[in-house]
């Protein structure tokens, strides 16, 4: 579908619902396409969504639904063709590389599926990495609180290769939290972990929202991981197709199964 075609109006039921709290991240009318002409793939079609501060939101959808692209655009890692992204009151779309880098450093925390830690640094140095990059001093009381919460006291001097996958991901969580960012983006944080380690990481994410008021946006395709969230936003073919509050794993699975049967979605939307 060529971009020049005016966007179809988004049906109201998928628009961001009324929020009790101020939004930490807001996307308005996001469009993102890759390639051109016949080969053009539209990853995001007019996506508008807000993520409330102090809440844990999961983004779900089948492969190719655009969930990763959405996260990358929200985090200032990818550019958008149209629309705006607002993080903590700052419009980040259109910012230059320097400003975006600084924004990611100061306002955003990241947890990736893998390659999260620098192998040359110890666990503690990895946790302090964003502060070090900024040339700033991290708040020691805050850091020790995170370390205690994540039960990493005994592992601080270890190099990543000396840690288990779960421990590594807990270090990554600590690092994401260390600068008290406006929002943490977690991209399939449990994708490489066993069930037990996944549980630990997810419980910590939940706890950091509940206890510290942290805002977290997590991309996942695992319904049981999504069940830890306050809200699940479902994407399919670059559009938000369902918005679920207080999800259970079963509800998520049902929803997923629901739009597996509802092919083709794009035609329906047009």
């Amino acid at each position, binding site marked *: 579908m060529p971009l020049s075609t005016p966007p179809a109006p988004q049906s109201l039921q998928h628009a961001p619902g009324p929020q009790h709290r101020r939004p930490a991240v807001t996307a308005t009318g996001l469009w993102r396409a890759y390639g051109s002409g016949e080969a053009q793939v539209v990853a995001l079609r007019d996506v508008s969504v807000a993520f409330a501060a102090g809440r844990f939101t999961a983004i779900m959808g089948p492969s190719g639904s655009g969930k*990763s692209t959405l996260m*990358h655009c929200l*985090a200032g*890692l*990818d550019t958008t063709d149209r629309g705006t992204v607002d993080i903590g009151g700052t419009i980040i779309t259109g910012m230059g*590389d*320097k400003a975006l*880098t*600084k924004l*990611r*450093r*100061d306002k*955003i*925390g*990241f947890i*990736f*599926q*893998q*390659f*999260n830690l*620098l*192998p*040359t*640094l110890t666990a503690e140095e990895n946790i302090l*990495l*964003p502060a*070090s*990059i*900024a*040339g700033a001093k991290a708040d020691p009381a805050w850091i020790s609180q995170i370390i205690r919460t994540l039960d990493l006291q005994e592992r601080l001097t270890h190099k990543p*290769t000396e840690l288990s996958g779960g421990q590594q991901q807990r270090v990554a969580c600590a*690092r994401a939290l260390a600068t008290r960012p406006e929002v943490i983006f977690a*991209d*399939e944080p449990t994708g490489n972990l066993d069930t037990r380690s996944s549980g630990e990481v997810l419980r910590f994410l939940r706890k950091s929202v509940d206890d510290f008021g942290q805002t977290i946006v997590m991309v996942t395709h695992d319904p049981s991981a999504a069940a830890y969230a306050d809200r699940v936003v479902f994407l399919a073919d670059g559009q938000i197709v369902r918005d679920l509050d207080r999800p259970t794993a079963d509800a998520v699975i049902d929803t997923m199964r629901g739009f597996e049967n509802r092919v083709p979605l794009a035609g329906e939307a047009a």
Partner: protein
Amino acid sequence: MLRAALKGMAARKARLALTSIAIILGSAFIAAALVLTASIQATVDDLNAEAYAGADALVQPADAESRSEDLVQQGIPAEALAAVESTAGVDHVAATVSWAISAIGDNGKVVGGLAPTTAVNWGDEARERELREGRAPETDGEVAVSAKFAADSGLGLGETVTAYSQTTDQTEYAIVGVYGYAGGRDSISGGTEIAFTTAEAQRLVFDGEDAYSVLAVYAADGTGADDLVAALEPVIGAESQVTSWEDYNAEASAQTAKLTKTIGNFLLGFGLVAVFVSVFLIANTFSIVIAGRLKEIAMMRAIGAGRGQVVRSILAEALLLGTIAAAVGAAVGVAGGAGLTAAIANSFFDAAQVSVAVPPTAILAALAVGIGVTVLAALVPAVRASRVPPVEAMRAAAKTDRPITLLTVSGAIIALAGGGAMALGLTGNLGGDTADLTGTAVGAGLVFVGVTMLTAWLSKPLVGALGLIWSWNFAGKLGRRNAGRNPRRTAVTASALMIGVTLVTATATLLTSVKASIEDYFGEAVKAELFVTGPAVSEVPASFDPAVMDDIRAIDDVDAAVEVYYDIADIDGTDQYVNTTTDFGGIVDLFGGTLAEGDSDELADDEIAVNQSAADELGVGMGDIVTATFSRGTEAHEFTVAAILVDNENTDGWYVAPAYVEEFYTTKPMMALVDVADGADIDAVTAAVDDALADEPEVSAQNHEEFVGEVTVFFDFAIIAIQLLLGLAMIVAVIGVINTLILSVLERTRELGMLRAIGMTRGQTVRMVIVESVTIALFGAVLGVAVGLGLGWALQNALADSGVDVFAVPTTLIAGYLAAAVLVGLLAAIAPAARAAKTNILGAIAYE
């Protein structure tokens, strides 16, 4: 996947291209060395063939170079000329008088510098001369000069030129003609020439004797060259020899070969260093390329490819790379060698035409070395790759570094063995000086190899320590950690630089120590404050009129002034360095010598003094009799050994009474020592001495520092030459560091993406790579400096008995090497840092 594969291939192409530069350099130097040698030989042979062109036989003094350094000039007596002219089968004879003299230009300086002016007799037929202006010299006060001489001296037709030889005083001549040579050339081989009348040339060259340097004999019709030579042999007398023109040329060609071989060997040395350093680089590149293809190799192994096939496929790649690079190198080398020949021929030989010779060996050697080195260097990584079990390589798990224990242990053993050999050699426990020196040298070599093997182990602590320089900066800290991440790779990369820096540091340390030892000696033992002497690097030794000595002695504050004459004499059948002076005691005193036996009384005409080791060499002692013949002497004299000096480089040699000066090759003093009164203004005395020397263009008054500088000027040349070697090693090192860094950046793409995602700026990324690069380069340089200093120290100790008793560190040079290493690091970081800064965050963190 396809894009990734293409990207990987492109990256590899760049890396292979970089590696091939090292091979190209090595091959090119080897080809250039051989082409240059052959081409200069051909060019000079052509030049030589012009000499005496048309003559059939040449009569030369017998035994023309009986003693070292070419000092001896004997002539063919006039009787021999008469005999030759009256021999049957001789059409005519052209007699040449030719030897180096000194001539003063209009700036008051000696014309020619390093290359002396040649005196010839106008009318000889050694060269085809073409008068350009004026006429031929007709009286003894007239000369014609070569166009090159006119240009160099600034003197022309109608002006006068002052010239003198080793045996004559300064004389003024009127320039009545200016000439060039066949082909419109201004000079032959760049030399300057003055043509005198035959009688005047003989006065300059043979001290007035009616003698000739060469007789060019032209055969009458019907007489062959061989017959002519056979006919001449019985008539020329014992002091002369006859050769055919062909043999003469062959001899000249052989002489040239010596020179060209030296130049060629120098270039070959460069080539070999480049090749040696390249081995590390090529091995590293192949390890890297193979590491990136482990999965591919494992897949091949899994579907049934044998180990041999894996090795062969990698070697085939090496062979292809080696062949292409060596071929390019050979072509570059041939072109470079030809260009260099033209440059050298035009600037030094003024050749009418440049002959470029490309011997097949040049191309074959360049190809063989380039291909051989590449394949050999790829062999180790290839065999290693073939040993990887398919399953292991298929796992995505991070590649763990192979342990470096074996390498470290064997490196330590070799280094220790070398150290042991050095210690034994230095303490003289190997029995015999030669064995001790050899032991020390072999030990030094072993230490070098051992430390090269230890670099991987050393890299951990050293890279960490070096990196502390940057730890104020976070990006710097990361860079430092990265540099220490893969010890083996860091070590191989740094080795290229280490080898070069070790070589230059060791050489510079030794030479600086020698210099310092000489300076030290002068400061302590030499009593004379000033030396009257000329440049050490001139073909005709600088000399001056002894009459100026009285003027110097008359200067206020000059306590004593003694002049010294030198000659190479035949003493008991060996070439020996002989001095004479009007004040034997004075020279020993002023030069800081001491007597072992006898006293420093003036030597009688039948007495001789000598230093201990020279006496031992001839097996003579006090009271023994030796026989000496001086350069121009016609008869042997007997001397009784009257004094023996303690060995000391400044006073070593034989001493005779001044009565024999007329038989010396140079009948004028070559040096004088001036003792300045204590507390006098040395600068004022220096100026006064220089005033006294105003008419002596070849010499000047020099203080200790200047004199030592003159004496040690060859060391400076040696250091410069060895520095060029370092430059070459540095080029290869830059390539090696670029190679390693690009690989590291590629390997760490995801890591870089993560760092950029969590807020690392492009500037920080660039700084991180630069620090890694500079740290690796500095690591190599620091190791090289350390090993070089150690080897230099060992060599100095080994030579301590020969007078090198001061250990001096060439601090400025070492600082320069370290600065150069930083530069290498910075240069090498440019491309990898740019690549790292451009890392696409999304591409880096996205999963397949």
